[in-house]
């Protein structure tokens, strides 16, 4: 289980916002926690996986994609804010995320 620091959420948010701005070719200023990833940004599911890879490296996480997949099926993500929340849970609980259910 990784330790969440005071600024972790800020870091995650910054990475997520910049990632979507870059990949979807929209200014960061047009992204908010309420932004819908598919409808508003024309995003795709692969982006979620790419972000997980980024955070796996950044925080040296012990997490398997199939674990996240099982969790995501029960807790679908639609908005940027929901995605940040899930990333925070992944960072905090790693492979134990399924035990939250």
């Amino acid at each position, binding site marked *: 289980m990784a330790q969440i620091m005071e600024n972790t959420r800020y870091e995650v948010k910054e990475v997520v916002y910049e990632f979507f701005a870059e*990949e*979807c*070719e929209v200014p960061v200023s047009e992204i908010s926690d309420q932004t819908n990833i598919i409808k508003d940004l*024309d995003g*795709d599911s*692969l982006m979620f*996986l*790419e972000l997980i890879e980024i955070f796996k490296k950044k925080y040296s996480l012990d997490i398997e994609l199939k674990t996240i997949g099982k969790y995501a099926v029960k807790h679908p993500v639609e908005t940027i804010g929901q995605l940040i929340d899930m990333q925070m849970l992944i960072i905090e609980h790693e492979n134990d995320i399924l035990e939250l259910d």
Partner: protein
Amino acid sequence: MGIVSSLGLDLETNWSNLVAGRSGIRSITLFDASENQTRIAGEVPSAFEEHYRNYIKKRAASQMTRVTRMCMVAAKDAVNHAGLDFDQLDKTRCSVIIGVVNTGNSSVEKDTTPQNTVFKSMSNSMSAWISLEYQLLGPSYAINTACASSAYALASGFDLIRNNQADVVIVGGADSIINKEEIEGFNALYALSVQNDPPEKASKPFAADRDGFVIGEGAGVIILESEKHAHKRGAGIYAELAGYGLSSEGYNIMAPMKDGEGMSFTMKKAIRAAGISAEEIDYINAHGTSTELNDRYETLAIKRVFGARAKKVPVSSSKSMLGHTIGAAGTIEGIITILSIYHGIITPTINLFHPDPDLDLDFVPHTSRKQALHVALSNSFGFGGHNATLVFRKY
């Protein structure tokens, strides 16, 4: 309609270059071909690398090969050209069929990540991307019948409309085999021209000194639509697809059936399906590859179908200018046939400086010809014996 080819990135540029009898064949720049026997091809101009960015978002583009991007550009141009607004249409009755031999995910493809490898290789990716772009809900699929792929796509789209399964079908083809490995492969089969200098003179269908085809690349897309639907939305109609003939030769994986028997059978089948007679045909856009066998047998096949009238029917090969665009050829040449009927201009067979005495039809050498056309054939014959003839009629 939309075309991306060695002769231009849009329909108008392609047409004006074809009418002018220009060649798109140049020395290969996509990779170092200095060790290859064949060092020339009809490459799409490098300006395409900037051009496509006006059509495709960066992320989607990263999941596509260069060829898939060509297909997307041609498809979006065709949709715009046809004045289609899919939000006003029943999307369950809008389909996509793309003829594709391979997606071009070869050694010349750049910046492929492990995640994008699958997307770039999927032969259905082009039809899928087009359906995604417009959120179309009708059937969307790919057809592979080698060099006849996109002619088969047109035939399949025709059937969807005729069988009341669709109102609008985005039909096309896209291909590129300009890469070291496939050129080596085709050289090993003695199928490619090795007359590298000057490049623009190498593709010479029906000429005595032809020595093989020249590889081209690109994409062509046509909007097929039912007459009723087109009238309802006030669309401009360029021509009618009056019918088609498809056949398999069951003969050889590479060589066409002796004396063009399969080719003539296919043309006759198409003419019959269109409910017309051979006497009504006033132009043939030939498969005309510049290989020894195709050009000989296609000539014999035309003579068999048209009899004494064969020498009076103009026959020209667009491949003399574009090279052989493989899976895209059926649609690109279909578009050229449609525009020939629409404008009353037959595009030429260039590089026919030394006529083959055995091939004695009217091949419209060197320069285009003004002539009113009413019904025209477009031939496509693929490796494996996949034959297609399309019949287009003036509307």
